[in-house]
């Protein structure tokens, strides 16, 4: 005998079934589009034969083969599919009436009181966060994990400069700015080290020696596809900002800050 409270024709599992089928449909449509629709669009945009706004998205033709863009798309597609699957599964579980029954909170009319000591402790935590944050803002300083968040506070100029690291190979210089060469940290750490420790030769030498060793060990482990380098060169590059960044690959100035190791200190044969 059925549940008399249950309206005729109603199915408690209908919503979760709809979610399940909907998720499966979306996933299949997404994977189909990701596999058969988007790659030809990418190839077409790479050849600048697609719609202008798509052609403009491919800005690194000179430095990246089309396979790099396709690989990036595959990564995005898989992550999105995984996200859709996780969200669909979570929604399916959340829609099950069995789950509702287990997790349904009962709410009596009167609220439970909070003890005085507990309340005092909470106010203490609030005060720590608020006072600490305001102090950092007032003093224009940081004290992890509190900060005044000063990013982008300084004025930008029409001349943009950046310290970049290049590797010296037997065939010439190679730009080693890409994140893959220095993961998990970035080339920014190297640039900052060069800027901060120019007066501390020993520390700078230790830092760059370690960085060069790290680069080589990661290269030998296949963690990146960079070439073998004999030394690192740090340049201060400067550009005059152009409206359409036409000169992004041609800095107006390129000044050598330092080279490590210096020529005289390289081992014979390098």
């Amino acid at each position: 005998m059925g549940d008399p409270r249950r309206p005729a024709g109603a199915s408690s599992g209908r919503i979760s079934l709809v979610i399940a089928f909907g998720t499966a449909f979306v996933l299949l449509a997404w994977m189909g589009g990701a596999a058969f629709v988007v790659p030809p669009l990418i190839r077409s945009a790479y050849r600048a034969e697609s719609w202008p706004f798509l052609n403009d998205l491919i800005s690194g033709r000179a430095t990246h083969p089309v396979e790099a863009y396709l690989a990036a798309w595959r990564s995005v597609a898989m992550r999105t599919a995984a996200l859709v699957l996780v969200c669909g599964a979570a929604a399916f579980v959340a829609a099950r009436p069995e789950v509702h029954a287990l997790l349904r909170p009962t709410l009596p009319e009167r609220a439970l009181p909070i003890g005085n000591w507990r309340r005092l402790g909470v106010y203490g935590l609030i005060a720590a966060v608020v006072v600490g944050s305001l102090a950092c803002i007032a003093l224009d300083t940081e004290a992890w994990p509190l900060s005044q968040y000063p990013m982008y506070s300084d004025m930008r100029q029409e001349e943009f400069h950046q310290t970049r690291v290049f590797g010296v190979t037997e065939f010439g210089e190679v730009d080693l700015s890409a994140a893959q060469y220095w993961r998990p940290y970035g080339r920014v750490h190297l640039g900052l080290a060069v800027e901060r420790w120019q007066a501390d030769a020993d520390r700078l030498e230790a830092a760059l020696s370690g960085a060069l060793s790290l680069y080589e060990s990661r290269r030998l482990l296949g963690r990146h596809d960079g070439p073998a380098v004999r030394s690192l060169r740090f340049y201060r590059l400067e550009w005059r900002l152009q409206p359409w960044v036409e000169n992004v690959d041609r800095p107006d100035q390129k000044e050598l800050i330092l080279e490590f190791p210096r020529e005289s200190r390289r081992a014979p044969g390098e």
Partner: protein
Amino acid sequence: MNRLTTRFALFWFQPSAPTSLAVNRILFYGIVLYYYGFVFSRADFAAWAAFPDAFWDPIWYFRWLHLPALSAGALGVLALVWKMSLAFSALGLFTRASSAVSLVLGAYLLGLMQCFGKTHHFDYPVLIVLGILALSRCGDALSLDRAFRARAGSAAGAAAAEVSPSGEYTWPIRLVWVLTALVFFGAGVSKLRRSGLPWILSENMRYVLLSHHYSHEPPTTWGLYVAQTAWAPRLMGLLTILLEVGAPLALLGRTLRWIFIPGLLMMQIGIHLLTGAFEPFWYLYVFWVPWDRLASFFKARMPAGVTARAAAA
């Protein structure tokens, strides 16, 4: 003064259902796990062990407590345990313990990343919210802990399964609200203090949009189109300052929340699309969504059979 203190107390401890805090728990720990488990290459914690010693520039509690950078193997284990604790916290399994472990290990691992001469501001509020949730009762609802207690079958289990509305489920959310307001307020004040009105009125924002195409890889070229006009970058600068400096106003009422919070979110998404710079603080924005009201809204519109069967179960 009595009215002010009463309003102040109500802001923090107005009794509320545990639903919102529970959903925020799930989303916050889930987002943190996603970013530090799958997105950020710098979250390959074991790799930090190989960073040259010369770069070591420890933050304050690493100095005070003489905390070292552990070996690659140890960091790998700690990172794995941390990510498991984040997952357990999201699921509400052994919530008290897992949220405490998330906080302690997060303080070490996230702090470690700041000890090599460069800080990452995305990480700062994460640790604070880890602390807030570790000290809260975020596992009282929508959690496996509660499900297991309810199934215990004893009188104690039944009593533990009932969750009353309480200020305990309000203050953590409100504290994250205040933290959000302070984060953006600080950013706005910093801009005005260091650069003044020229930050808005000069070519500054135009140069910001252009220079990121030299230093980053923005996901779009829209910033270049915006930079071609004289008024659009200045308008962006003005809106940025207004939203950031005005962020604390979002604490004063629902209408202002609807103005400032979506505005700040759109601003951060816009920054990411136009410049390729940092990720939006998704893990803060989820705390501003009234999940309990959303749940009531959808529950009221679910077919009668579903709610009746759930009520009978």
